């Protein structure tokens, strides 16, 4: 497939705002999970909450989009001079610039809160509640499209926890098909009651910070975050040391709506498809950023898929012990983590895990290694049996 250049990228998570604090945390093996004190939630769990999201103000003309998810999107896009770089690319490409974002729950928190304030007489929701600007899963793209004046194709992919990865695949196809030349892609998801009480109902919420691939793993820690990348078609002026998207793979489990295939068959198909589109062999991958949610079944299923393709020879880790699982944003956050690792020349270890479950037959890395990876695979899987794997590296 045609590789794409990551001209710019940024991520905001509980590790901090922008690339710098994320890089420091990944290098030092520190995390950002804290005891859940979000809204009125009364669950014993840890979350990756981002401080200061509610202090972020949308411009006056965009108040109809005001919700935690869109405030987070704006806060994140302002980091690392990303907004300026994207605006320059938008002016350069005009209608041949696209916007494809991923989210799982969008601004549903606004609806959850509005349902508490229905009129006791009419049963109607409060007048100020705006569905289109908050709850609608398209809301974050509608906001950024207008704010950044994007005139080309726009959509939101909402495939649960693979959303933030699948946006890269969609943009790659549109650029390869010649519909556009550049795209802003990313994932934005924010804390809400649906996911916290939902994962609690499935008994998948860890009471302590999550421990991916550990013997004593006990479920996920929900995070929130926003990560973006500016993708462009390589041209004559593109430097060969640019970080690039080299491969994409997608598949479905066709097994169960909320449990992964026990042998990771769907995951294996998406990994193999990503390697095939990148035209590389498994040994050419130097590090795998796992989906690694820390549930019993995900980690078992994923380890079998990884072991079937790579054996024990490729180092892998989950960075969700540091960031939490930011659901629809996770794939985009982890794509940025791959870019950081490639650029800075290190392989992030997965924190909180001690000991690694010996039943998971992969080379799980607990401490960061300062060796330069050339190519990285990132896995993102989700409810509905949706799987997406991405390969990042350099153009040359």
């Amino acid at each position, binding site marked *: 497939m045609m590789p794409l250049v990551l001209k710019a990228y940024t991520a905001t998570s509980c590790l901090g705002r922008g690339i710098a604090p994320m890089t420091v945390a990944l290098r030092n093996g520190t995390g950002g999970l804290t005891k859940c004190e979000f809204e009125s939630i009364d669950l014993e769990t840890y979350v990756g909450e981002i401080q200061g999201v509610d202090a972020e103000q949308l411009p006056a003309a965009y108040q109809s989009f005001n919700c935690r998810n869109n405030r987070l999107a704006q806060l994140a896009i302002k980091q690392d001079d990303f907004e300026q770089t994207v605006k320059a690319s938008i002016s350069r490409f005009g*209608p041949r610039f696209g916007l494809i974002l991923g989210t*799982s729950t969008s601004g*549903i928190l606004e*609806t*959850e809160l509005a*349902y508490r304030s*229905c009129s006791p007489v009419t*049963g*109607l*929701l409060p007048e100020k*509640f*705006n*569905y*289109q600007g908050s*709850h*609608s*899963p*398209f809301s974050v*793209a*509608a906001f950024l499209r207008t704010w950044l004046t994007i*005139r*080309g*194709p*726009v*959509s*939101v*992919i*909402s*495939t*649960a926890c693979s959303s933030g990865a*699948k946006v890269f*695949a*969609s943009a790659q*196809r*549109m650029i390869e*098909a*010649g*519909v556009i030349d550049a795209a802003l892609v990313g994932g934005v998801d924010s804390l809400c*009651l*649906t996911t916290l*009480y*939902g994962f609690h*109902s*499935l008994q998948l919420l860890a009471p302590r910070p999550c421990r991916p691939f550990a013997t004593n793993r006990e479920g996920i820690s929900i995070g929130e975050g926003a990560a973006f990348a500016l993708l462009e078609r390589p041209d004559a002026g593109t430097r060969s040391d640019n970080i690039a998207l080299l491969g994409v793979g*997608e*598949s*479905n*489990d*066709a097994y*169960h*709506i*909320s449990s992964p295939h026990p042998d990771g*068959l769907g995951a294996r*198909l998406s990994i193999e*498809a990503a390697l095939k589109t990148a035209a590389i062999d498994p040994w050419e991958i130097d590090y795998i950023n796992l989906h690694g949610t820390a549930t019993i079944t995900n980690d078992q299923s994923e380890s079998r898929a990884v072991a079937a393709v790579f054996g024990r020879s490729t180092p892998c880790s989950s960075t969700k012990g540091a960031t939490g699982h930011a659901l629809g944003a996770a794939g985009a956050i982890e794509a940025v983590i791959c870019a950081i690792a490639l650029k800075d020349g290190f392989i992030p270890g997965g924190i909180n895990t001690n000991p690694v479950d010996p039943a998971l037959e992969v080379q799980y890395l607990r401490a960061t290694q300062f060796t330069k990876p050339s190519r990285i695979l990132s896995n993102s899987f*989700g*409810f*509905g*049996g*949706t799987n997406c794997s991405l390969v990042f590296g350099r153009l040359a």
Partner: protein
Amino acid sequence: MSLISYINGVSFIGPGIRDWRTAEHIFSGLNPYIPGATELPAPMSLPAPERRRAGRAIKLAISLGMEASAQAALDPKTVLTVFSSSGGDGENCDAICRTLASDRQLSPTRFHHSVHNVPAGYWSIATGAMVASSTLCAHDASFAAGLLEAMTQVTTSAAPVLLIAYDTPYPPPLNDKRPIRHVLGIALALDKLPGPRSIAKITAQLGDSPVDRLDNSILDDLRSGAPAGGGLSLLVRLARRHWGSVHLEYFDKTTLTVSVNSC
């Protein structure tokens, strides 16, 4: 740059219209339109436990996909799919928000049915399809955004792609804030090259012509009553074999111009 695909199969399900044959006769003027409820058969292709739990969005999406792929003589197990819906399963969303506003004792089934790609997940279970599938949305532009993604995939994969666009209304109180009037959907089986099943050749690109409205006000109510209905003017041209261009709702003054031709 425009995208080209061939339509090899169509499905339409909506109020009083159970399949494409019924729709074709109504859209072409052969039969009168008698509005009624949207009939959604139980998806027998699902295992019994999944079938019991399937809500309207799942039943609608599976029925649409099955009809369009059968017309195109495609094995659904092997076909790439693009699902598009503005808001997914409205009833399930309302039930979750009510629970969260009261005792917060959410049922696991309610929760895992809350993700936007639930119909795509059930489709893959029903058909055994492990190939790539995407689920997207674009509010009122959801049909055109889905068509653009599906035609892009036809171009890059050179394989058949099934577009399944569907919507279901929210119950009160959300329906007041997001009025979707119909349980309605459209599916198109698309391919890169013409074949024996091809009905029409379509070419799509973004433009600035105003959105087409249908001269028949009852049919135009189907078009505007659910975002998935955004493809109705295209389907009316197919039914009438009336070749020409349609302009589908996209964003602001931008529309998706689709020229529909014989093949």
